[in-house]
């Protein structure tokens, strides 16, 4: 039997308890615990000492990596991570957690929808980007391209790197098509594939429990010259963002403030008191 590391499992459990419940309508489909731990090790090593930006991260790979490092369960980690996500619940869950365990010097988060131009404060700022976007099953990878483009815009003119985490199952034709599209698009942006770890991560996905994702790492091969402008996404590019006839219609997901963050929502249970007590 494989070795079980109690400290690592408990740390990942803290992270999982902190993840807001996923909203399938916007493709939030969370990575399973064991893969989350392994992915944190992987990202810790590959992006060691770098300033990294995450474009969307419901899985909480960013938080998990930094937390494991903070708990001395990882030897190496990025220097800093900034998370951009359009779900305020996710953004706040990262800020609150880092604040509680006191590592806000290493991780931060802010609200951003990839439909919008990348704010200038984030342009050309980071050494690496990471994205696990909507996988583009029915949009020929358009949603993946949008996330990757934002990642590239956020990275420096030279020596930039990226990690693209998307579906990979040779038996499902669309996953191979999207991989093809995205590698081609990366080349177009002067990024080459530097490493490909096929079919590694599992997800909580009812209708495709065995569909896994790969780590496709890319690296800038030619220095960026001149300027670029980060434009808003054109409507034809988000008409099928979450699938055919399923456009992007939401700017932000807002958090409803509640006093019992991380506990069962009041409406889901009823207390039955002992006789005579209330």
């Amino acid at each position: 039997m494989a070795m079980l590391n109690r400290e690592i499992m408990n740390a990942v459990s803290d992270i999982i308890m902190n993840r807001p419940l996923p909203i399938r309508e916007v493709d939030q489909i969370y990575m399973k615990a064991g893969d989350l731990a392994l992915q944190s090790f992987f990202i810790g090593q590959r992006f060691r000492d770098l300033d990294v930006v995450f474009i969307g991260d419901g899985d909480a790979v960013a938080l998990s990596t930094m937390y494991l490092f903070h708990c001395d369960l990882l030897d190496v980690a990025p220097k800093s991570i900034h998370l951009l996500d359009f779900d305020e619940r996710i953004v706040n869950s990262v800020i609150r957690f880092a604040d509680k365990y006191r590592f806000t010097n290493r991780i931060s988060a802010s609200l951003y929808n990839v439909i919008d131009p990348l704010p200038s404060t984030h342009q050309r700022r980071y050494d690496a980007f990471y994205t696990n976007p909507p996988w583009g099953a029915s949009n020929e990878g358009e949603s993946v391209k949008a996330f990757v483009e934002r990642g590239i815009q956020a990275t420096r003119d030279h020596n930039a790197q990226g990690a693209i985490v998307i579906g990979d199952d040779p038996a499902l034709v669309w996953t191979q098509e999207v991989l093809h599209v995205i590698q081609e698009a990366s080349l177009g942006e002067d990024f080459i594939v530097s490493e490909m770890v096929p079919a590694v991560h599992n997800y909580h996905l009812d209708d495709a429990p065995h569909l896994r994702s790969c780590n496709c790492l890319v690296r800038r091969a030619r220095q960026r010259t001149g300027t670029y402008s980060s434009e808003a996404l054109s409507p034809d590019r988000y008409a099928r963002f979450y699938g055919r006839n399923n456009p992007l219609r939401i700017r932000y997901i807002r958090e409803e403030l509640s006093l019992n963050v991380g506990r069962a929502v009041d409406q889901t249970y009823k207390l039955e008191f002992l006789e005579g007590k209330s």
Partner: protein
Amino acid sequence: MIRILTNGAGLIFMKIGIHAQEGVEDIIARKKREYEQAGMIFWGYGGNTCHPTTFIQPFAKTQAEHQAQVFLMMHKMTSNHNADPVSAKQYSEDGIEWKPIPEGIQVVGSRYAMVIGNLTEEQFDLNLRNLVVAMGPKRGALGTDYIQGHVDKGCFEYHERAETPEETELKHIDLYSPLKPPYAVFLK
């Protein structure tokens, strides 16, 4: 029936059984009355594989763009479903704007409903090997690789194959009905 199952046709396969403590035959009789009164039926369902706005509506709209109608095809089976028979009071097409459930319609114990026309009771065999998953992350997979374990319904395109199916790949269909706009709704 042969008419409906042409190549490229869109269909939703669904297993049905006792629901919220009510037997299938009772449900069918009640739903037929519903059609007479309201001119449509809300067929309640749950689970995560046929979500109204990410699966059913985009699927039916895409078919409608090609002037094609999607049929809900139901396979009766023995099952237990003991959820409390709580009646839905409101429905919504987008999960945002809610309206009262139309006069004459009653759906119990379900989070979602497909909006369908009259029910036709007719028996025939559907070969799961002829079904190709049309929506979601398993798009392109065969029905035989999809309808498994907890997955008991899905959106498919019909594509006839030459191979003879195994006995277990044939599912008898007991009743069917066309989907009608808005195709699927949320309930509360």
